[in-house]
């Protein structure tokens, strides 16, 4: 069975995924995108068109901090590090995400129970 193509990131979750990735270690844009794809076992794919505006906005909000380094080939590399404020925001984002997914799970479970009741009555 061929592997499923990676899904695009759900709206509103990109900041959470970037912060979570940088909480593990500082990284550049390409590394962040690959890390998310790899960690999700190729289930999630970050588009460059979404990644860089998100990185720049997070940096502007002070949640991450960029610095320039040199690559092995001598090219300038912009590496991002999560800040103290970023870690606090990450905790809030994770709590919010857990709350949403738990609520969705409850709705799905209730719907399944209703379907089974309808089947039984029919």
């Amino acid at each position, binding site marked *: 069975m061929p592997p499923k193509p990676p899904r695009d990131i759900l709206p509103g979750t990109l900041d959470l995924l970037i912060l979570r990735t940088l909480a593990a270690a500082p990284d550049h844009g*390409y590394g962040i995108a690959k890390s998310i794809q790899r960690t999700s076992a190729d289930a999630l794919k970050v588009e*460059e*068109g979404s990644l*860089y505006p998100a990185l*720049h906005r997070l940096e502007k909000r*002070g949640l991450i901090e960029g610095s320039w380094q040199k690559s092995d080939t001598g090219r300038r590399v*912009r590496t991002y590090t999560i800040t103290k404020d970023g870690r606090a925001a990450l905790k809030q984002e994770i709590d919010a995400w857990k709350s949403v997914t738990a609520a969705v799970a409850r709705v799905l479970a209730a719907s399944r129970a209703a379907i089974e009741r309808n089947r039984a009555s029919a």
Partner: protein
Amino acid sequence: MNLRARIHAIARATRPRSEIETDVNDEFAHHLEQLQTEVSRPSGQRTTGDEDGTVLAAARFGDADALRRQCVNIQLEDRTMLMKLNAILTAALLLAAGALGWIVIRNTTEQTRAMNTLAQRVGASPISRTVTLPRQPSSQSDAAKTGFVYISGNVNRAGVYGMEKAGMTLDRLLVAAGGAKPDAKKVTVKRGEGAKQITVAETPLAELASTACTTVLAPDDLVTVE
């Protein structure tokens, strides 16, 4: 956003636009280089198709120009805000300067007019430029409301003086004018102009110094110390 992040964001935004564009270009160039390396690996290690690395990487990156503009604009958002703030502050400063200039010109005009009146009354040429009064009243607006008096002759600072709001007596005017000179003998107060001019007081200085002064001056009074 905390203050430190705000200051950093503003500092970044105030850099030259070309510098910000160079940073964004370098960041994208590194990403494209990594993508090219990834898609150019031997086929067994590729994670994507078989196309030429550069073309495929560029295709995956999408509309780089639009993305570059978007990222530069994010950096410049604070500069736009600063430029608006700068324009507002400049306009406020210009308004304040204009208002101050208008007040100064208005007061100077009043003073010049008063000096010209005095000059005409004492037979001198009218002055056409701003003059500095020997002593200004404590409040220009009060002087403007109650008028001026003129003192000349054997006093230390002859000139035009603004009337005090509560009324000015002759002895207070003499004090304001720096006092009479040693050879001064009497002081005369004249009111009105031309044929209608009358002498309202003619007092020996010795008498003025020894008794309470009851001569209250009126606007445009001409005081002469001889």
